[in-house]
């Protein structure tokens, strides 16, 4: 239908979202039109991912109210619609944050998403950059009225050597399945079973050995798929994100490094304001497993500078952006010698005794025992 409209009227559609008007090409979804206006009107999205075809429509967090369908037929739509799957019409009037109905429905959606989601944020590696955390914080009920019944329980699963699957945390957004479908040549994982029993898995725990399988970690809005090479190594907000690149024959090689000091704790793709992978040179900047899991040395990368992080994010607590390191004046005065410290914390402290970033998996008691011997 969008094609027909394009042929007949190659004009732009005028759409008003939260009293802000924008002209968009026909075929644009309400969500994308809102994103064009800006962060202040864009509905949240847990499953929609603009770089993946056929994504969206599953989580219902982007529900909006359509107050007027179009100029030709200005009747409002009776029900709230999923903005990621509904295309705009000329003269459409949409209420997002200005509608009580939408805000109330979203509170319900948060409760539904949390029905089976364990609130184990203290041990989850995604905490701090988790989209469900932000979503429930911003749109959930203020008074805690959480589901008290038993949640789904699954065993932890290793999907290949690099990815850990916590199926209990999964909200079944299907983003990772779409990555497997569209980014990798051969799909080796998908959703098994139905309804409440549905789970993401590789069939009989088959290892994923595709070069781009690591991008599942980046698209996962929750902590269901996490990086095993980063597992439990540090909290996200104690690491310092910097943009870096390297020459890679498989991918664009443009990544974000998450550093602790000079150590590279984790490598991820670069994210845009919608928590999606950035588009660089007209293409989504997916990164290959080699860059993500094997290049954990600072010499492997060319550092571009600190990543811009929204100041509302806990990750911004380090205030590393625009930081000017003060000049060390003491060695200058003392003829090149460093001042004698009464206590060098690095010699006294037991933390940082192991090069934790170089471990292939999470640290265990064995790691520290070995060090002591």
């Amino acid at each position, binding site marked *: 239908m969008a094609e027909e409209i394009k042929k007949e009227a190659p004009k732009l559609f005028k759409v008003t979202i939260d009293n802000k008007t924008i002209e968009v090409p026909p075929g644009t979804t309400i969500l994308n039109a809102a994103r064009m206006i800006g962060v202040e009107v864009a509905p949240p999205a847990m499953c929609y991912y603009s770089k993946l075809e056929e994504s969206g429509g599953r989580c219902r967090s982007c529900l909006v109210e359509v107050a007027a369908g179009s100029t030709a037929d200005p009747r409002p739509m009776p029900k709230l619609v999923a903005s990621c799957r509904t295309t705009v019409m000329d003269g459409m009037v949409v209420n997002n944050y200005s509608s009580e109905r939408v805000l109330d429905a979203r509170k319900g959606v948060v409760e539904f998403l949390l029905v089976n989601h364990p609130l*184990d*944020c*203290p*041990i989850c590696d995604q*905490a701090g950059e988790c989209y469900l955390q932000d979503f429930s914080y911003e749109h959930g009920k203020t008074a805690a009225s959480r589901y008290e019944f038993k949640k789904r329980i699954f065993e*932890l699963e290793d999907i290949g050597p690099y990815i850990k699957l916590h199926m209990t945390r999964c909200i079944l957004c299907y983003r990772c399945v779409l990555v497997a479908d569209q980014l990798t040549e051969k799909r080796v994982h998908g959703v098994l079973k139905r309804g409440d029993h549905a789970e993401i898995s590789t069939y009989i725990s088959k290892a994923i050995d595709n070069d781009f399988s690591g991008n599942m970690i980046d698209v996962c809005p929750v902590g269901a798929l996490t990086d095993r090479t980063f*597992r*439990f*190594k*540090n*909290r996200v*907000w*104690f690491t310092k994100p910097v943009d870096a690149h390297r020459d890679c024959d498989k991918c664009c090689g443009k990544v974000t490094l998450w550093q602790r000091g000079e150590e590279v704790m984790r490598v991820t793709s670069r994210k845009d304001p919608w928590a999606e992978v950035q588009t660089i040179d007209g293409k989504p900047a997916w990164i290959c497993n080699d860059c993500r899991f094997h290049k954990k040395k600072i010499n492997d990368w060319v550092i571009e500078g600190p990543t811009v992080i929204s100041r509302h994010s*806990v990750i911004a*607590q380090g205030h590393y952006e625009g930081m000017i390191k003060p000049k060390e004046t003491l060695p200058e005065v003392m003829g090149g010698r460093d001042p004698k410290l*009464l*206590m060098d*914390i690095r010699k*006294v*402290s*037991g*933390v*940082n*005794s*192991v090069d*934790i970033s170089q471990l292939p*998996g*999470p*640290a*265990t*008691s*064995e*790691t*520290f025992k070995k060090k002591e011997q």
Partner: protein
Amino acid sequence: MSTQLTNRALPVDRKPMTFVESLYLWNILKGMGVTLSHFFRKKVTYNFPEQKRPFSKVFRGLHVLNRDEEGRENCTACGLCAVACPAEAITMEAAERLPGEEHLYREEKYAAKYEINMLRCIFCGLCEEACPKDAIYLSETFAPANYGRKGFIYPKEELLIPHPINEKEAYDKAVGDRKIKNNKTN
């Protein structure tokens, strides 16, 4: 008069003293009166080692890392205490619980290293407030004095509360009577 911050400023009397005033007799007596009156007031000091000053209900002393009733460590190294700490005194390293270590740690992740720099700590108690796992508490004890700075870097072994089953006596002592008192009032 030039600008002043408050209207409480008093002009100073700069008249030269008379002969009687310059003897300071009256002023000395006034001062002695103040000193004497203190003899009959309640003492504010304590005979410390014999007599202990009662702590305030909200006194914040040395940290303890809590265990649950089975003696497993509560801390999961979530880092919320460290991020809440205004003095950046807390550092930690997490590790994964291996099969067979379930009796030691309550959850799949635990703090393998946990360190508080008591020289940095300002005993504000924000770590206690931030903790989602009931794992860190400020106790009723002071950080003991030490000859070297090194002794103020407290590793996890020193912070952990004694085992509630194996070392019950030490555990009860570490819990202190405040918890019992607080439970009574609740």
